[in-house]
C-alpha cells in the first residue's frame, strides 16, 4: 500500500496528517514514511533520531576538449540550452541540464562522458519501532527536485506500507511523488484559497488515475462549500479535524497529536481503513 498525502494549498496540514497516521500505524505494523517535500522537508522535526545520510546525484556531461571537434551537434540537440559550442570551446551550464544524456548520444567523436553531480541528500532513520523515516533534501540552489524525490521513493520501493508526504501545489515534484501510489489523501481547509487549490489537486489525481479522499483540517464548522464540492465530485470526506488551540499548541511544540492525545489514534486508524478501501486493497 502506497498512500500519498497531498494538498493544493500549502500549510493545510499534510505533514500533520502524515506524521500522525504513520505514528499510529507503526504501533501495530511496519510503516515507511517518505518526506517527498524535498525543498522544505519537515517530518524529521516530529521524529528526531540519528540518521544515515546518502547523496543523490544526477549524471551531467563532461566534454573532453582534446577530442571535441566543436561541431556543435550537442549544442543544437540540447533543448535546455545547457551546452553552447563556440569555435574553440564548449560552455556547459549544469543548472540548465536535465541529465537526458542526448548530448553524449549525438556526439560523433565520443568526446562526451557523464559524471555524477550531487543535487541533494537522503536521510534514513528508525525513530521508533515499526517506523522508518526517509527524508529527501534538495541542495540549496539546485533546481531539480524530481530526481531527489525519485531516489527517496526508490529506497522505499520494497516496503509494504509506505506513506508519502508530498510538496504543496500541483507541479512536477507533486506529480513525481504521486506517481505509482495506490491512493491519495488530499488535505484541505475551509477557506476560499483552500478550496480553490483543492480543485486543482483533485484534477491532478484524477488525471493520474489515483483514487482520492479528503481530510478537512482546522475546520471551523463552516465547511459547506467544501462539502458541496466533495459531493459534486464524488469525493469522500474521510476525516474532519477541528480548528483547535490545543492541537495547534501540540503541533507547534513538534509533538504528535496521537502521542499526546492517544484517543485520536482510533480516528487515524479509521482514516487508514478508508484509504485501503479507496485503493481497493482487501484485508
Amino acid at each position, binding site marked *: 500500500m502506497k498512500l500519498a498525502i497531498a494538498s493544493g494549498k500549502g500549510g493545510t496540514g499534510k505533514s500533520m496528517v502524515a506524521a500522525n497516521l504513520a505514528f499510529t500505524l507503526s504501533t501495530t505494523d511496519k510503516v515507511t514514511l517518505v518526506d517527498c517535500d524535498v525543498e522544505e522537508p519537515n517530518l524529521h522535526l516530529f521524529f528526531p533520531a540519528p540518521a544515515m545520510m546518502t547523496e543523490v546525484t544526477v549524471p551531467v556531461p563532461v566534454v573532453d576538449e582534446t577530442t571535441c571537434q566543436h561541431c556543435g551537434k550537442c549544442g543544437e540537440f*540540447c533543448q*535546455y*540550452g545547457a551546452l*553552447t559550442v*563556440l569555435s574553440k*570551446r564548449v*560552455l556547459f*551550464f549544469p543548472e*540548465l541540464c536535465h541529465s537526458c544524456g542526448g548530448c553524449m548520444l549525438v556526439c560523433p567523436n565520443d568526446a562526451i562522458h557523464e559524471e555524477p553531480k550531487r543535487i541533494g541528500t537522503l536521510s534514513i532513520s528508525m525513530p521508533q519501532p515499526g517506523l522508518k523515516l526517509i527524508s529527501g533534501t534538495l541542495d540549496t540552489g539546485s533546481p531539480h527536485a524530481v530526481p531527489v524525490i525519485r531516489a527517496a521513493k526508490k529506497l522505499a520501493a520494497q516496503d509494504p506500507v509506505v506513506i508519502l508526504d508530498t510538496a504543496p501545489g500541483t507541479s512536477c515534484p507533486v506529480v513525481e511523488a504521486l506517481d505509482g501510489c495506490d491512493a491519495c489523501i488530499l488535505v484541505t481547509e475551509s477557506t476560499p484559497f483552500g478550496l480553490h487549490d483543492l480543485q486543482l489537486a483533485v484534477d491532478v489525481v484524477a488525471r493520474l488515475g489515483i483514487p482520492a479522499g479528503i481530510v478537512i483540517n482546522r475546520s471551523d464548522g463552516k465547511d459547506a462549500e467544501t462539502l458541496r464540492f466533495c459531493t459534486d465530485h464524488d469525493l469522500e470526506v474521510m476525516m474532519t479535524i477541528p480548528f483547535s488551540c490545543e492541537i495547534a499548541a501540540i503541533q507547534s511544540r513538534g509533538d504528535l497529536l496521537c502521542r499526546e492525545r492517544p484517543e485520536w489514534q482510533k480516528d487515524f486508524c479509521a482514516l487508514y481503513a478508508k484509504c485501503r478501501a479507496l485503493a481497493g486493497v482487501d484485508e
Partner: protein
Amino acid sequence: MKICFTAKGTTLDAQTEERFGRAPYFILVDSENGSFETIQNPFADGGGGVGPKAAQVLIANNVKALVSGQVGGNAQEVLAAAGIAMYTYRAAGSVRDAFDQFTKNTLERSV
C-alpha cells in the same frame, strides 16, 4: 560590423524589446551601410535555457555587438566567451533610435 538589436517588430521603426532571450525579433544592422536583416527568435516562447540558445543565434550570424535592455547571466557568459560586446538600451524607443545612440557612442557598455 553586424549589431543585433532586440525588437518587438520586424523593421527599424519597431519598438525595442527589453529582454534578450525572449525577444520576439533580432534586428541585425550593418553599421557600415545601415542595411538590416530581421531574424525571428525561435526561442522567444521556449520553456527554459532560452538565453544561451538565443546567444547561439547571434554567434551563428556573426554578430559583433548586442544592444538590449536586459541580458541574463547565462546568455552573458556565452556572449562574452564569443567576444560579442553588450550595450544597454532601456529608452523603449525604436530600433532606429537605439542604432543612432549606438553610433553616437552614448550607450553604456555592460560587458
